């Protein structure tokens, strides 16, 4: 029986000894998966519209600090952007945060009404004036294709002609409309922010070659703020703060998981000094002992991972609709190597202690 199998045999024959640690780790895994799910859900509801654009760059007006509501891109600026080196295609983009309601709906629904000029990413070409492509999340609020939404304080009628998946903005479902429709909504919902014809809040740009290099060229040539899409997404209000907060929580749970494993194996090593001494006395090397402990750590962590993920999935299923947990396979899988790495790091704290066990001291008391 090799040392690694001795370790595995102990886990199988004395599962109770490892159960508490595995249970604590499973809870931490569940917490971590749910936190990732919440982060992805919240980020998705905030940034879906930008991700739906799927463009290379967004160009904002000068001094707008990458905020659509502060930004204006005049036709002259647009022409300079279009002329910049590396720009392949340009389309106008504008948004109005407002609300809408279908006939008979008891309460209005918040909406981010986007006006846009051309098909990019997941967005088809703009619908005809008076029609809109709605974020699919609106279907959960009872909106169906063919329904007419009365949008804004004056109830601009917009017929829902199709869905766009995952296209909300700052937590509000997106409604994607033709330029003329958007300007009508803007004029009634935010009359103080009406833009002259041909002026947009931002430009959606397809770049030739490296997006960051093209963005830098546009900024230098025009004075506009040009950002690659990922950077534009991270500059959306609250996105970075949200991400940083969640990452800190996830980091803390990872740290606690490492401490749990470290403490458990430190205690178990202390408790087994004599046993390890006996094994060393009969010829088991420190490396073999550590290998057996690593196998135990991996077994406990693997079991905790499976239970923790199952618990997180169950929790996500029973969570209320307003809690936007989005579990993806990639995230769930990502937790595994982090957990394993953390467990092995935790175990490493016992490395020195195991190596220093002297069989003569442990076994014969000398």
């Amino acid at each position, binding site marked *: *029986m*090799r*040392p690694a199998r*001795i370790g595995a*045999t*102990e886990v199988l*024959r*004395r599962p109770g000894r490892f159960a508490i640690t595995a249970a604590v780790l499973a809870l931490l895994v569940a917490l971590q998966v749910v936190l990732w799910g919440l982060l992805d859900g919240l980020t998705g509801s905030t940034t879906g519209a930008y991700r739906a654009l799927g463009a290379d760059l967004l160009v904002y007006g000068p001094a707008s600090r990458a905020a659509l509501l502060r930004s204006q891109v005049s036709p002259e600026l647009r022409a300079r952007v279009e002329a910049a080196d590396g720009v392949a295609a340009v389309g106008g983009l504008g948004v109005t945060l407002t609300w809408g309601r279908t006939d008979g709906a008891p309460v209005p629904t918040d909406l981010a009404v986007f006006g846009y000029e051309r098909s990019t990413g997941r967005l088809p070409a703009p619908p005809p004036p008076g029609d809109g492509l709605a974020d699919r999340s609106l279907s959960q609020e009872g909106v169906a294709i063919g329904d007419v939404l009365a949008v804004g304080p004056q109830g601009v009628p917009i017929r829902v002609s199709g869905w766009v998946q995952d296209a909300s903005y700052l937590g509000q479902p997106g409604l994607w409309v033709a330029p003329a429709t958007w300007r009508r909504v803007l004029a009634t919902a935010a009359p103080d922010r009406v833009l002259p014809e041909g002026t947009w809040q931002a430009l959606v740009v397809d770049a030739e070659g490296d997006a960051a290099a093209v963005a830098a060229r546009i900024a230098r040539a025009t004075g506009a703020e040009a950002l690659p899409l990922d950077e534009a997404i991270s500059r959306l209000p609250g996105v970075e703060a949200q991400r940083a907060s969640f990452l800190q929580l996830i980091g803390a749970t990872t740290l606690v998981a490492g401490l749990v494993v470290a403490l458990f194996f430190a205690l178990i090593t202390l408790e087994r000094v*004599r*046993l390890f001494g*006996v*094994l*060393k*006395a*009969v*010829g*088991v*090397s420190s490396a*073999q002992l550590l290998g057996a402990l690593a196998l135990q750590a991996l077994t406990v962590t693997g079991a905790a991972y499976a239970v923790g993920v199952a618990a997180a999935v169950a929790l996500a299923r029973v969570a209320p609709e307003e809690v936007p947990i989005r579990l993806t396979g990639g995230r769930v899988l990502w937790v595994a190597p982090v957990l394993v790495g953390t467990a092995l790091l935790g175990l490493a704290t016992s490395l020195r202690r195991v190596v220093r066990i002297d*069989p*003569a001291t442990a*076994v*014969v*008391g*000398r």
Partner: protein
Amino acid sequence: MPALMMDEVRKVYGSGEQAVVALDGVSLEVGDDELLALVGPSGSGKTTLLSIAGGLLRPTDGAVQVGPHRIESYGPRELTRFRRTAVGFVFQGVNLVPFLTARENLLVAAEIAGVERRRARARAEQLLGELGLAGKEDRLPARLSGGERQRVAIGRALMNEPALVLFDEPTSSLDSRLGAQVMELIRAEVKGRGTAAVVVTHDLPMTRYADRVVEIHDGRLVT
């Protein structure tokens, strides 16, 4: 070739004013099928001598040869390899792995020495049978009596057919009747296999099973 040869072995623990001389110029030879009893009061150096012979401790000075192995200059890795195959230990208090069965406790010794699994199993079955443990191979140590645990420990020490088996107070936790049985068993096993053995004991009546008795006082052998 003697199973164990110690020449002018010294062992000093600590240094300076704190230095304690545990062995002071010990020279000893144990023949290849000899059963030697080592007796002496507590703190006389018995356990140190046993630990040096088994490669658990390195001597401060002197030469130690176990079979073909000159171990006084071995490093930790060489000593670990040496302990896998060249010596067998039966520790005071037995020290079996508590969550392994009797058979598995024997297999540990063989498999870490690289013995092929099927051969190791066959050897374990044979030894368990010879030690009167047939039918109890799958029991955990907690479900064996004190004498049975001692026999499993002896089996583990003999698994790799070492030239030298070292017993540290093998009867200390047993009553006199069981102690005598264990000593008879040790003698039978050692003599039956042509193995040398050193038995450290406080228990003078048990020395009658030995071929030779050596006494140690204050780190020196008394002739």
